[in-house]
């Protein structure tokens, strides 16, 4: 073991460090020691690092919801985790004395395996060590996850799926949140999978969600390469934590055929957590492909289409030939649409119960 007593020589290393968004639930007073053995790092471990070279991510999302510009020699507290982002990086939860990569602005550190050609190399970090408590236990963000007792879920649950990144899922989820909130419902907004980032959380809060949770609240900095059974437990737990809400809007990251999302949607027990799904797509053809995938692979028939394509009337006209209503974000934020979707959900619940 390579343990450094934080009360003596290592303590100054942590002073003034920037704590990232994914570490926001950690009680900092419990951290006493620094573990410099990086070979056993696992997803969720808390990492103290120093910025060496600014790359793609020039800002860090802080635990208090603000951005902070990054400078060389900044000390940052991050979580080791995997990353899956087609438009940025694929990375794994691994640390090395030679350095590590800032894989996501929410505070995910690891080793980049590939990057989209349109983005720069990641911001490069030196790893000082993993943070540990006084019993030499390396602190993991799962240690501070919501303590959730399995229980009922909100009365109604709508899942927001997409054809891929940047299909308009978060805008659609926020629109739904706003529409149901203005109809008078107490709305929970949940990001069930993805990489920790405060952007989604802020969008949901701005839309009027009464409760906002994401997988980081359940102890995961990223859901990439996590066992599907654990991911199902995460969604189940987050729904149980918001059971007092009238409705939950649950966004799943990436496209429906992304490996974890696909595995989850294929599970009948996972689908049973939802009353209905909407699908966000950047265009009609993408929507058609995703609908086909959902039908054949997951027995899912979304109740509506939405997404970036709703910015283009021609794309909407083409998408309407798929036989589903096509709602823009503005339509979804209309309580009249929420009222309509309420009726559709109630009908589905009755049919499911019958």
């Amino acid at each position, binding site marked *: 073991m390579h343990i450094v007593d934080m009360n003596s020589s290592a303590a100054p290393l942590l002073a003034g460090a920037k704590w990232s968004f994914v570490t926001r639930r950690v009680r900092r007073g419990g951290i006493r020691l620094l573990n410099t053995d990086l070979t056993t790092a696992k997803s969720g471990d808390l990492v103290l690092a120093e910025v060496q070279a600014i790359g793609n991510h020039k800002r860090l999302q802080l635990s208090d919801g603000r951005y902070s510009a990054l400078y060389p020699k900044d000390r940052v507290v991050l979580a080791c985790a995997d990353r899956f982002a087609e438009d940025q990086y694929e990375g794994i939860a691994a640390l090395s004395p030679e350095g590590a990569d800032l894989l996501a602005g929410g505070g995910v550190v690891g080793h980049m395996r590939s990057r989209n050609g349109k983005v720069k190399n990641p911001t490069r970090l030196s790893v000082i060590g993993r943070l540990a408590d006084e019993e030499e236990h390396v602190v993991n963000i799962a240690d501070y996850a919501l303590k959730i007792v399995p229980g009922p879920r909100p009365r109604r649950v709508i899942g927001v799926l997409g054809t891929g990144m940047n299909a308009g899922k978060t805008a659609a989820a926020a629109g739904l949140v706003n529409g149901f909130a203005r109809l008078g419902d107490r709305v929970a907004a949940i990001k069930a999978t993805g990489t920790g980032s405060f952007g989604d959380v802020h969008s949901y809060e701005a839309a009027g969600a009464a409760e906002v949770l994401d997988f980081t609240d359940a102890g995961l900095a990223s859901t990439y390469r996590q066992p599907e059974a654990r991911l199902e437990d995460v969604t189940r737990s987050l729904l149980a934590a918001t059971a007092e809400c009238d409705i939950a809007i649950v966004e799943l990251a990436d496209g429906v055929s992304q490996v974890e999302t696909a595995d989850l949607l294929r599970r009948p027990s996972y689908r049973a957590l939802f009353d209905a799904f909407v699908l966000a797509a950047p265009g009609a053809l993408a929507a058609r492909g995703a609908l086909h995938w959902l039908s054949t692979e997951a027995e899912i028939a979304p109740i509506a289409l939405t997404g970036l394509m709703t910015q283009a009337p021609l794309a909407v006209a083409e998408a309407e030939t798929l036989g589903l*209503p096509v709602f823009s974000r503005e339509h979804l934020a209309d*309580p*009249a649409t929420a009222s*309509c979707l309420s009726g559709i959900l109630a009908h589905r619940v009755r049919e499911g119960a019958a």
Partner: protein
Amino acid sequence: MAQIQFRPGVPGVLPSAWLIRPRTGSAAPPVLAIHGLNRETELMASMLEAQADSTGRTVVLPIFDRTSWPRFQRAACKQRSDWALLALLRVLRREGWIGETPPDISGFSGGAQFAHRFTWLYPDCAGKLCLVAPGWWTFPDTRGAYPYGIAPGDPADSTSVFRMRANLARFLDREIHVMVGALDVKQDKNLRQDPCVMAQQGPNRVERARRWTAAAIRAARRCGLRPRISFQLMEDCGHSFGDCMANGSLGPAFVSEATPNPLVPALLDHHHLEEVA
């Protein structure tokens, strides 16, 4: 006597309202009384005061002022009078004027236009409907393109059409009492007289109310519902709320007993409805 109070609103955001609280408080759901295009809410409030007392029901008269909501009767209009009413209901619940139970909604003339469209958009937000002498209707069938019916028309209306079609059964699954004065057959300036409306809905409010009632009954049956939709012609009444209150049976229908309405079966104009249907 009942207590009448004026609750000021916020222009363009929250309608002002007359609130009539009966002498004896009641747990019965409130009644929303929606004015017509002339916005005679003060007169309506004074005329409904006694009825609020006798039924023990709180009556709310929102005021969609001409500046903020000039075309309030369309509900999902540019100024979104439907959103304004949702906001008012939320505020009145928070202030303890009304409870969580959906209110019954009664509307006269343009108020009846608003009432049926609002309830169609928000079926869970309303109880019984009393619709009196609207100038024109949104029909629950495809004989007219939206907003005259629910047939597809302008592509810009596709979301509205979808919502109305999806909500149709929930909208019709309630007591709906349609009333109109027997003398309300004049083609006045407030009566929409486009050729397509004249052809689809009829030349005057009486005929339009009859046709809509029959269409609603047919639509309810198509939805697998047992219709609770009735029609009443008020003798010796024209297009005047005051006349209908004084000469007709409007009061007990507009603010009815909270229990199942005993008036409706006795007042049905069954013969004519069967003819039209």
